């Protein structure tokens, strides 16, 4: 029997980026907020100290900061004709566990989505006609526009202390920035990071090839920075241990480095760690959430009543909890009815390894130190001749030269072991770089999340089941992007290049990207979305869902900037609309 606890105004399921932002914003509005986190508490001191955090084996290879599949995983299959099997160890993506969430171990690659991304279906229909969209492609408009989100992107970027070069300020193009980005009200709070040699070579080659390269916006501070909450960050030292690691230097934006020092002092905020939320509870009408049930580290079950329940876990975990709690109709691919689990999407990446003549010291880097071109993202180019939808950026990142996992490919014909392999590593480690393509993935009728009929988690609940594969549209788009990347690679005048197309089925390993999206899509129609434009559940107005789980399809950019902007947008709606009149904010 669960112990019933004292009610709070707001309970947050998960204490990562979205939970931290909401906690900060809603406690400012005077609400009593409680965050429940499945992982441990951790902070820069002592957990991330540079004396031990730069440990590639422990963090990047053995996954010390990520969720453990033994406790929580999903099953996977490429199509509904197959039997899904458990993801037994991490592979294709690395969700976090612990306070700060993936905000602790991300690179800090920070982007805004394009204005056209938010009106994906109507934009494509308008420019190319309805027939341009394949019948099984279930893309939709987000219900919120870029212009509406712009002030919230701004808020996110100034909270994080983003280092970058604006490309478009109030419609006026800025030299050196991304000319394709949506108009922004002002520039970034910090100038770009220093360039690495490899990004400088990429920049020159891309210009010669006729493109407009720019320094990628980074949640790695190029200079000391104090954010609007009054939290101080230090200058990035280019140590090359960002992604999969925590920053010991207060230089990578994370909840710990931007929000928690202020939030944790508040009397109207509390958090509980090592607690797994297993259900969102409903009242007898089934139309209102009464709080959540969670299990603590001793296996004790608690019922935490709350007026407002906000799901702030990683994308697929939010969907899992909605399905386990029976909130919203589960999606059924056979009838195309139901919504929860619908429109799961991902991203499609590829690379071109470039074997240079120059010594580029790859170990000096930062998680978001990159140079990119955006000519082929979103709808920045005419898709009519190409017969596919979507795109992506092409970038050369210098995130570090960690020796176990960060050797880019080796020249064609190199064996996988033995003396010739050893020689190739010796000759190429200091003289290679890799150009990445980062492509969008549209949503499809046959790509979805539901509950697995066979496999169970540690609490006896059904695991989430992922059914997903790449479609022709994405393969075509990725090939197109990769060929463009190869063009730039050749223009870098290297000894040789190796082109790594993304071909064949999606696979649960090896690592590709942790940009899983969808399953609780936002939209304008309750028949095709779980949440409305304010991320509020259509079926249960006192439940909100944050994070990339609300993306109706995925764009060709890293998602965190958009996740941050959407969270501030939703926080604003809760403070200024919902609190004044609790109930459904959108009437259809």
């Amino acid at each position, binding site marked *: 029997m669960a112990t019933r606890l004292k009610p709070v105004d707001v309970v947050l399921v998960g204490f990562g980026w979205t939970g931290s932002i909401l906690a900060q914003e809603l406690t400012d509005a005077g609400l009593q907020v409680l965050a429940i986190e499945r992982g441990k508490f951790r902070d820069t001191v002592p957990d991330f100290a*540079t004396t031990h955090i*730069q*440990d*590639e*084996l422990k963090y990047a*290879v*053995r*996954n010390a900061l990520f969720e*453990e*599949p*033994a406790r929580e*995983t999903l099953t*996977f*299959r*490429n199509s509904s004709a*197959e*039997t899904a*099997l*458990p*993801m*037994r*160890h991490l*592979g294709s993506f690395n969700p976090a566990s612990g306070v700060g969430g993936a905000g602790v171990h991300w690179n800090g690659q920070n982007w805004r989505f394009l204005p056209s991304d938010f009106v994906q279906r109507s934009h494509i229909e308008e420019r190319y006609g309805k027939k341009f969209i394949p019948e099984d492609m279930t893309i939709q408009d987000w219900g919120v526009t870029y212009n509406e989100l712009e002030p919230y992107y701004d808020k996110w970027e100034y909270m994080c202390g983003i280092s970058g070069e604006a490309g478009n300020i109030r419609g006026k193009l800025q030299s050196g920035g991304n000319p394709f980005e949506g108009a922004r009200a002002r520039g970034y709070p910090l100038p770009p990071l*220093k*360039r*690495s*040699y490899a990004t*400088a070579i990429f920049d020159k080659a891309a210009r010669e090839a006729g493109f407009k390269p720019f320094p990628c916006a980074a949640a790695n501070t190029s200079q000391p920075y104090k954010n609007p909450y009054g939290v101080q960050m230090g*200058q990035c*030292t*280019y*140590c*090359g241990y960002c992604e999969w690691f925590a920053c010991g*230097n207060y230089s990578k934006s994370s909840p710990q480095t931007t929000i928690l020092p202020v939030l944790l002092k508040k009397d109207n905020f509390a958090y509980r760690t090592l607690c797994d939320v297993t259900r969102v509870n409903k009242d007898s009408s089934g139309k209102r959430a009464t709080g959540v049930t969670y299990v603590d580290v001793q296996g004790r079950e608690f019922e935490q009543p709350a007026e407002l329940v906000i799901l702030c876990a990683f994308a697929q975990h939010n969907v899992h909890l909605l399905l386990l709690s029976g909130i919203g109709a589960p999606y059924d691919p056979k009838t195309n009815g139901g919504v929860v689990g619908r429109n799961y999407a991902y991203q499609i990446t590829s690379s071109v390894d470039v074997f240079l003549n*120059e*010594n*580029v*010291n790859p*170990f*000096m*880097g930062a998680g978001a130190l990159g140079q990119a071109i955006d000519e082929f993202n979103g709808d920045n180019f005419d898709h009519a001749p190409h017969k596919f939808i979507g795109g992506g950026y092409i970038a050369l990142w210098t995130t570090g*030269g960690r*020796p*176990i996992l960060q050797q880019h490919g080796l020249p064609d014909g190199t064996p*996988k*072991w*033995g*003396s010739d*392999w*050893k020689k190739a*590593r*010796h000759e190429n*480690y*200091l003289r290679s770089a890799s150009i990445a393509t980062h492509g969008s993935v549209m949503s499809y009728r046959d790509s979805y999340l539901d509950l697995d009929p*066979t496999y169970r988690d540690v609490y006896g609940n059904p695991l989430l089941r992922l059914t997903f594969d790449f479609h022709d549209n994405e393969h075509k788009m990725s090939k197109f992007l990769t060929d463009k990347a190869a063009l730039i690679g050749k223009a870098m005048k290297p000894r040789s290049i190796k082109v790594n197309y993304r071909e064949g*089925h*999606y*696979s*649960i*390993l090896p690592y590709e990207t942790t940009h899983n999206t969808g399953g609780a899509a936002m939209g304008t129609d309750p028949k095709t979305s779980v949440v409305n434009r304010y991320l509020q559940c259509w079926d249960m107005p006192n439940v909100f869902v944050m994070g990339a789980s609300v993306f109706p399809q995925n764009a060709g950019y890293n998602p965190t900037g958009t996740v941050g902007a959407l969270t501030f947008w939703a926080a604003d709606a809760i403070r200024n609309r919902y609190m004044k009149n609790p109930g459904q904010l959108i009437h259809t």
Partner: protein
Amino acid sequence: MGNPTNVRTLRISRRNLLRASAIAVAAGCGVIPRVAWCATPNSSTGSRGSEAFAYFTQDEIAFLDAAVDRLIPADDLGPGAKEANVTFFIDQQMAGSFGRAETWYMQGPWKQGTPQQGYQLKLTPAQLYRAGIRDVNEYCQRTFKKDFSELDAGIRDRVLHGLEKGDIALRDTPAKDFFEMLLKNTGEGFFADPIYGGNQHFAGWTLLGFPGPRYNYINEIDQFGKPYTLPPVGLAGRNGSPAKRNV
């Protein structure tokens, strides 16, 4: 079932004793210093230097030395995996949480999946090594009348290629899975920080020109093309074989 002693030195430190004890408790079999694996086969033990092997038997150590020596050989570019102590690294990994697949989802039902569905064996990494080494030696005895470790380098290469491609069918162990794990862990051992027992004297990092985890490149990053000349440093400092200090 034998009674192997897994701490190889006569000088058993308190620290190793505690570690051995913890492993014994976790594995739920035996008391110190009869530790490690319930399924440890009968095998005479030995020592090499001052390392305290925690999981592998003498025969398994011989196998691994002979295998990692071919995967990353010593040559005119410098020491190979054997010299960098990668066998000891793998041993320590197998005795720890990775070897026990502690963080993996290891509940049934067990089924063979598609390649896209990833690892679906019932074996933990430590169990995969034990079964794989046994089966490769059995194959080598059947084919060459010798253990793998007794074969010439060229023949060992042939066997390793056969495992890699799946051309050699082992009695019980999926050859490709075993090879893939072995190759991956060998690379890890050659390039991981020396505190884990491999990459001794920074053999792997020196091969590449990686100077180790350093705190600050603010002044160096934009000196394009200039070689970085400071010697490697690890998490335990300039000492390239810190793991041995514990014994």
